């Protein structure tokens, strides 16, 4: 477990010294701040509900950039060799990397906490706390699932750009698969609808925690991390 913490901590620190992470955070805050104010001015409602569904779209673009470096850069520069020849188990590397990225995502989410604060100070009457909490939970779960997919893509290549594009492609397919459902008919359509992240996200912003949705996101995380582990072990066999 100490290894997981050590790897995660190193990863998190390296985000904060990387210019990419600052650019991403700035961009994220710029776009989400813009959306927050525009939505607020138009709706005149003290709610974050509409913002949350937009944050999901922003994740689509931002998480590939957060995860592309994780394992691809290690294998390009060769540092993976030093990591894997130390008494660190493969799953500790995967878990550590993932938690590091998740930590940075949580930091980005924490940067948006002044939106609800503004609503509480100026909102008349006070906004509803419940939907805000579930909304944030949904945003974080969705981000967590996207990061796991990004980590998997990063383990498959030595090239960061390839990792980012691959992640984005997978996320986009998951995102859009709901709209496919209407064309392909019942049995297949049910499958694509279930796979779609959109259909699982909506309830959270409405203030509902449905376990099926939580299970959906957590299974994506588990499946992607497991495949990453396999990909890391397969590399050992191939190398």
């Amino acid at each position, binding site marked *: 477990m*100490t*290894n997981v913490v*050590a*790897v995660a*901590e*190193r990863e998190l*620190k*390296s985000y904060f*010294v*990387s210019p990419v992470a600052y650019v991403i955070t700035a961009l994220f805050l710029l776009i989400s701040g813009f959306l927050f104010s525009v939505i607020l001015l138009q709706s005149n409602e003290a709610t974050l509900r509409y913002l949350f569904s937009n944050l999901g779209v922003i994740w689509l673009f931002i998480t590939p950039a957060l995860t592309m470096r994780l394992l691809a850069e290690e294998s390009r*520069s*060769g*540092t*993976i*060799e*030093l*990591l*894997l*020849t*130390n*008494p*660190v*188990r493969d799953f500790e590397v995967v878990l550590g990397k993932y938690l590091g990225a998740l930590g940075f995502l949580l930091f980005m989410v924490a940067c948006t906490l002044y939106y609800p604060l503004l609503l509480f100070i100026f909102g008349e009457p006070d906004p509803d706390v419940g939907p805000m909490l579930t909304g944030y939970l949904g945003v974080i779960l969705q981000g967590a699932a996207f990061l796991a997919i990004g980590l998997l893509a990063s383990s498959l290549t030595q090239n960061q750009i390839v990792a980012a594009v691959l992640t984005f492609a997978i996320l986009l397919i998951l995102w859009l698969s709901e709209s496919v459902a209407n064309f392909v008919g019942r049995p297949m359509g049910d499958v694509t609808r279930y796979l779609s992240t959109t259909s699982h996200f909506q309830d959270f912003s409405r203030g509902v925690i449905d376990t099926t949705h939580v299970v959906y996101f957590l299974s994506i995380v588990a499946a992607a991390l497991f495949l990453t582990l396999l990909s890391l072990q397969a590399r*050992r*066999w191939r*190398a």
Partner: protein
Amino acid sequence: MIDVQHLTKDYGAYRALHDVTFRVEKGEVLGFLGPNGAGKTTTMRILTGYMPASSGTAKIAGYDVFTQSVEARRRVGYMPENVPLYGEMTVRGYLDFMAKIKNIPRAERKIQVERVMESTRTTERSNQLIEKLSKGFRQRVGLAQALLGNPDVLVLDEPTVGLDPKQIIEVRNLIRGLGGDHTVILSTHILPEVSVTCSRVVIINDGRVVAVDTPDNLTRRLRGSEAIQLEVRGPRAAVTARLQSVPSVTAVTIASDGRSDGVTTYNVACELGGDARELLAAAVVGGGFGLLELRQAGMSLEDVFLKLTTDETDTGSGEVAA
């Protein structure tokens, strides 16, 4: 301390290692000498558990590097070729991270990091980012990282590549000082390097172990003697004297005994150039002894030496091209 048995590694159809077998005793500094592409890095990667062998076993302190990988890795400090480091970290931050994943207890960590920085003389740069360091300093950070936790075994892949002559001497002295407490295995393609740092040398070429010997013996062989092996029937003293009378012969040693029929195998060292085989045959037959076999031995070693870098001065430029 290190026991490698019949190691074979295939990369697809290409066989990088053929049946490599050698042992390293505790406290020994073993040089792994061979031209580029001979299989040195492959062997080291197998030893450190980075990748598995296709067949054969390797044990470190009694732990199999594949089946008991984590236990084996705990006892090894490894410095890979090209020294991959995290450029965005400071020297101290990096070493602290490595100390953590080597499971060095919190209380000891700071002391250990200071100690390895001291012994590799990187303390003065401890707060600098690794990416800003010169090649020589990176190399030393790589070495410092390998020394963390006082591992029983140190595996150093080309530790002096890319260093300037002064740094090379420093690193060699450092490595020599490590023998005794640590078992060191270092790879190189530079012949003089092994003679200054190693107590024993394994020469590898095209994935096969060609020779295992002390550096002195190897240099003697290199200085150019040609080895010829003879099987002769007859009294030993008389045969030896007869062989020594041949002009270009520098030494005659008896390779095997214990044969009841009076046949003895002799190893004859001759000066290089000018084939002594005819003269030897004539001398044996002329002396009235029975010549059963005469053949040239150790030629493959000569071939390997030809491919090795024997001149210290051209190592820098040679490395750029490689």
